[in-house]
């Protein structure tokens, strides 16, 4: 079996595990956990534009920052993302301990243990844990904050163009992948096996988490099933196997940087259009919470506040 085939198979495995963990994790979190939200504010298209602006600007900051400042910046960013997701689940003291241990272990392993295969694998497990929890948390922050499937569909479509441009025209994404590789708090989920190293970025995982959670919120289980098929096909399999067919995505014999959202964005947008036509208007968050698609919930909102909210939500 050629090197590129073995590399692609490892990439496929990593992508399937990561995308399904984030998509299903985001939906499970949406079903079970109620995140805090501000008194006023719901997600709209201007927020999509703001998000895209961040997505364009942040990589440039990552590339321009000195290594020490980049690590500090990433520590703050991942610490905040983890706190968003863990706050409703565990007490503050335990939460900050968990976050401290996760980030501390990341820093330690990245600095001391990357000389061995086992060290690399531990590095990816630690990095992956942080990235997966962060992607699930942030996707829920947006979807529970009012992001709808139509926002998610446009978001992924615009990401598709962004991803293509910044991987094939201006090689920002490959440069970014190189800058993170082997350093703490790598913004990707990956694994190393033998000489092969495969990873999928947090931006892609966040897009899948958002789309899956928004689809489930909008139309329930029927939409989620279709979405998972699309994520597996166009988010995991397509990009992972592309280098077998197209040499444009390989660097040397192994190093592969495929614009995942370029694969996923257009089909995902068409899927949204089809669901909109087939299932009608999507549910609001209030309608979702009243539906049978919500499990027994945990909430960071004090009980007295929930009691006040409940009658209005049932109105």
């Amino acid at each position: 079996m050629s090197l590129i085939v073995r590399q692609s198979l490892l990439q496929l495995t990593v992508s399937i595990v990561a995308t399904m963990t984030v998509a299903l994790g985001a939906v499970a979190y949406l079903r079970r956990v109620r995140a805090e939200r501000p008194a006023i504010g719901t997600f709209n298209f201007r927020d999509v534009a703001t998000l895209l602006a961040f997505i364009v600007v942040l990589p440039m900051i990552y590339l321009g920052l000195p290594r020490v400042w980049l690590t500090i910046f990433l520590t703050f960013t991942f610490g905040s993302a983890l706190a968003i997701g863990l706050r409703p689940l565990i007490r503050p003291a335990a939460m900050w301990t968990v976050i401290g241990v996760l980030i501390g272990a990341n820093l330690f392993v990245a600095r001391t243990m990357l000389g061995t295969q086992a060290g690399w694998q531990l590095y990816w497990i630690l990095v992956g844990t942080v990235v997966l929890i962060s992607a699930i948390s942030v996707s829920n922050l947006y979807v529970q904050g009012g992001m709808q499937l139509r926002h998610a569909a446009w978001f992924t479509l615009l990401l598709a163009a962004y991803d293509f441009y910044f991987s094939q025209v201006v090689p920002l994404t490959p440069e970014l992948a190189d800058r993170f590789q082997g350093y703490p708090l790598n913004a990707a989920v990956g694994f190393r096996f033998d000489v092969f190293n495969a990873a999928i970025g947090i931006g892609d995982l966040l897009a899948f988490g958002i789309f899956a959670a928004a689809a489930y919120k909008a139309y329930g289980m029927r939409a989620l099933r279709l979405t998972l098929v699309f994520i597996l096909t166009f988010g995991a399999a397509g990009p992972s196997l592309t280098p077998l067919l197209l040499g444009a995505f390989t660097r040397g014999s192994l190093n592969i940087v495929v614009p995942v959202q370029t694969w996923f964005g257009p089909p995902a947008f068409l899927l949204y259009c089809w669901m909109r036509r087939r299932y009608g208007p999507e549910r609001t968050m209030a309608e979702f919470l009243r539906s049978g698609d919500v499990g027994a919930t945990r909430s960071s909102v004090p009980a007295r506040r929930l009691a006040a909210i409940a009658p209005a939500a049932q109105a």
Partner: protein
Amino acid sequence: MFETGIRQFRMAMAMLNGRRIKPRLIHQLIADADATLGEFGSPGDDVDDLLDGPFADPETRDHFQTRGLRHTARRLATRSPFYAARFAEAGVDPGRLTLESLATIPVTTKADLVDHAGALLCRDTSPSLSTRTTGTTGRPVEVWLSRYEAELWPAMAALSGLLRNEINHDDCLQINLSSRATAAVQHDIEVCRLVGARSRALGVLPVDQSIDSLLDARGGSAPTILGTYPSYLARLVRAAQRRGLGPHDFSLRRIDVAGELLSQAVATGAHSTFGVRPSDTFAMTEVLPVSGRTCGQHHLHVDLNMGMAEVISLVGPRPAEPGEVGTMVVTPFFPYRDCMPVFRYDTRDLVRRLPDEQLSCNLAAVPALSPILGKADQAVAAGGRLVTPRDIVEVLEQLPGAPWPAQYRAAGTDRGLRLTVTPSTLAGTTAAELAARFAGIGIECIVDVAASDEPLRSVRADLLETTFTADAPVVGLESIGA
């Protein structure tokens, strides 16, 4: 979401630093709040903090109130000729004003407002709209509002009304306020416009016309909110009862009353007739936009975001002690009051300062006073105690004949209260029984009966606005092709 966060931050900064708040900013927040309610069905988790402010903690409350006072006093010292002179006379440095030193500044009276209206206008503002008190409690006072105030107050009210579910775009507000209460009427209409609700400004019409309007379900246009005076509400209840109407005939979900005393009897009558217990609110032209809400335990909670309320003893210029009755003195803060501000305005509304204990009501996060007990000049010293208008109104309006709004004249004697009532007040009861009811609450009372049912006092329901078609029903949306 991001934009909304920035807008909330800008609003908070303006409030904190005492800078003018752009009404457009609040208009945008109203749209944001409407979208939030559309998506979630309710506001988010910290809405109480946003609306009521951080006033549950006494230290924080004192800090914010002191800041508000200083911002307001500093501006008045440079822009208001009246207060520049007053602060100078009192030897007060506005920048160092404290809650304790506040008492050195004399209260502003209604006479000051009437006699020095020109000197009370701030130099950097342009008067745009004048509003006059109705004069039911004395000489009318004219208060000028700037365009900024006329835009800001309804915007703030619309935002809090939306978030508290007091009004939304499905509502129709029937306004039975005097057409001369221009600020209040303009305010209500503008609130409706901002939240997308409908408004019917009817004025103080003959009550049957207002009842016809409340019944109007054609085209789904029946009012869901009623805003009026307690005395007019009392007459509406009586009219509805005469016509055999009950809760199932109306679409009301809220009744707001202000400007007079609302008795328990009228509140209960409104509840059983319209299916809604009225919300008794405090609002007064002179101290706008400061307002107050009444909680489930009948406390009055004044909105401390927009101003400060003190209770001044009736027996000297000092703060009332816990449990003591005094008059409520209100200072609206800048940037909410702009054109013709007042500082320590003595409303002459009697309230009792509550004991310094932790409240347990639904509005416990906001400090409270007793409900308004009536105007100080209508209270009487009788038999060694103070008898307030509320003491009298509560007893009279509980009588079997439901003589609403209560008609009486009170005088104090050494032996007790001397009360004159109209003959119809005693329908179904006797003067002796009425005296016994007063004795039951510790007031010795001699009851006199007037020769006729001529009114013995003025109420706002008497500001009647006649029409040429007294018997015609109010035209609904359907009939005008809407």
